């Protein structure tokens, strides 16, 4: 954007102030800015369009000649979609697996992490500080580093090739605990006393009084964890061995083999896998943005 186009005396470029009267020259700057936004937004959408176009073409030809934004009507057909719905083998099985794993992981992680965060906020106890430091440490250790010993470990526990091994390590999720803790710090401790006076158990206070208050935080974390699980690749790839247990990302990756000639299913399957998440995004846009940016909590 050109800042020299119009000289303006206003220093208030960043703060939103809808009440201010528009300045001279703001109009042309506004148009330019709008234009820039549209261009950048369209660029961001190019890969989606390319993929959409690709779903109407023969997958092997895409591998041979690449993907572009044009579609030769003579080559276009619905064969890939016909295959997806009639002869896609395990594709919808992977889809269902991904959905199941994601739902179980999200519900489990939210409940367990909220439970733990509540303990950290509402009580004083021995080892509280060292334990909380552990939460912070996990947030800085790359999971990839733990992957191999963790793999050896889950095998030793008899969890190989199971969803338990995929889900369990992330149940008490450090980022989520941290986020819930920050959120709960804002809830007055009187609620605890009030509950106790009313004769509610320590756990009843959490489940019946506090949990309902955590709704917005839950929504944000559901999205964050849901996205992470839905797209998780490396760990499930290591743990899951039976093709019928594969999740969608691993399953799609298996189609990228020179020996199977499955490129058509790959492209249409990849495109189709975006649809549920895009629909959810359109319905709950606000929560998505909150969830994804939730980490930037200011202390």
């Amino acid at each position, binding site marked *: 954007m050109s800042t020299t186009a119009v000289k303006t005396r206003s220093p208030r470029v960043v703060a939103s102030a809808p009440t201010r009267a528009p300045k001279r020259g703001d109009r042309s700057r506004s148009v330019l800015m709008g234009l820039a936004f549209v261009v950048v937004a369209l660029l961001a959408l190019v890969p989606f369009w390319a993929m959409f176009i690709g779903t109407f073409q023969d997958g092997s030809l895409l591998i041979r000649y690449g993907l572009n934004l044009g579609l030769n009507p003579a080559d276009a057909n619905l064969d890939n979609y016909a295959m997806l719905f009639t002869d896609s083998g395990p594709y919808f099985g992977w889809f269902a697996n991904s959905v199941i794993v994601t739902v179980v992981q999200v519900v489990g992680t939210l409940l367990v992490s909220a439970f733990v965060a509540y303990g950290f906020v509402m009580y004083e106890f021995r080892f509280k500080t060292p334990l909380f430091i552990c939460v912070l440490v996990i947030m800085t250790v790359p999971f990839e580093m733990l992957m191999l010993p963790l793999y050896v470990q889950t095998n030793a526990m008899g969890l190989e090739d199971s969803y338990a091994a995929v889900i369990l390590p992330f149940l008490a999720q450090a980022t989520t605990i941290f986020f819930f803790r920050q959120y709960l710090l804002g809830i007055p401790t009187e609620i605890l006393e009030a509950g106790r006076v009313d004769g509610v158990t320590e756990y009843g206070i959490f489940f019946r009084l506090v949990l309902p208050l955590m709704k917005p935080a*839950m929504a944000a974390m559901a999205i964050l964890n849901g996205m992470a699980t839905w797209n998780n690749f490396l760990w499930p790839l290591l743990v899951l061995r039976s*093709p019928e247990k594969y999740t969608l990302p691993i399953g799609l990756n298996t189609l990228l083999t*020179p020996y199977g000639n499955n490129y058509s299913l790959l492209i249409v399957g990849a495109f189709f896998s975006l649809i549920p998440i895009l629909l959810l995004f359109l319905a709950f846009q606000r929560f998505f943005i909150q969830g994804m940016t939730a980490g930037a909590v200011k202390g």
Partner: protein
Amino acid sequence: MKVLRPLAALAVVAATALVGACAQPASNQPSDEYSSTVDQKAGEDATTLTLWTFVELHGKFYETMAAHWNEQHPDEQVKLDVNVMPYDDMHNKLQLALTSGEGVPDLVDIELGKFPNFTKGTPALEDLTSYAEPYRDDLVEARLDLYSKEGKTYGFDFHVGTTLAFYNTELLEGAGIDYTTIQTWDDFKEAGVKYHDATGKAFGTADTSAQWQANLLLGQLGGDYLDADGNVTVDSPEVVQAFEILKDLQDSGAVAVPPGGQPDTEEAYGAINKGDFAAMIMPEWFMSRFTAYMPDLKGKIAIAPAPVVEGAEVKTVGGGGTGTAVPSVGEHKELAAEFIAYAKLSKDGNEEIWRTLGFDPMNTSMWQDEAITHDPENEYVQYFTTNPFDSLNAVSDSIGLLVSATSPNAPSVNNLFTTETLNDIFESGTPVKDALAQAQSDLENELGQ
């Protein structure tokens, strides 16, 4: 929990997806992208054998052989549960499965380049030597040796993979070249330069992600990447000479790096099909890639013996391969071993290998059987202008072997060459000697030599 409204929405999507999934009949049977079309003719009492492979066509072949086996062995019927997985993924998983002893298949296709990984230390694979005995006299011994360690054979291959030359006759005629005159690498270069001058295009390929041509040259020159003890010798004079010959071809314009880095990639099929390359020096099994992926070239491709270094005793080498192995922990390992010996070594099996996969099988008793090799109904016979067995029989007594292929150090060599060294030489223009010296030092470091 009404608290979690977005979760409820997720659950709705989940439910929808599940309903959708259950409506798909295919998802009821546990299998991967491979959907079987072959009737295995297995009865109720058939023993189920799990089989892992990374090639869909191999799966179909095994199922066809299971049907034959079941007809001949009504008391020992088998039912194959075929799993097709991606190449890297399958080998990694197999390694992990064999280490843990859990989830091990009854039968598994192991690619030649990966095979030595599985015979390190005490192999977790069954010794198949005795199962090969009934067929041994007719087999190309070198192909059994390839999967052997200390005299014990652990895998059966599909084919010899004799390296041959595939010429696009239409393009060659256009440039005034007669492929039958190409005998030596000098002839090949001369033809390549002539073709390049006439068309502006490359004649052959300079491969950066495979070593087919390099291995052929090494076999002819009597060199190898490793010595008998597994010591790295990639900077030896023979290896340098082999790559100098290939580099000289590239510099003269006769060959160029194909899309995908070697002929056996989807990208290269496209380029070859379009006529961007006219000569491919590839193992025999490349035939099946023509029929499957390059239909436009039907009736235009001639098969001839590969070019040789003048005076070489070894005229060609076997390239690639897939050894089917039987993991020792398997419950039905005897049955699995008997079945695989029948499927891959018997004349029955070898006829089927040629018919459906288009490979030059290990059992040479069928190479001379013109009823099979020149069967006019055969799709390979129809596709090519010359019969592959004419070329195969011409070289059958001088098919060599790079012994390095059986060394446990071979996977490291192949990995380094196909990622680094070949790209250094053919893409970056690093002098052959420097690139190989670098490879020598990298490999010595990695292997602790």
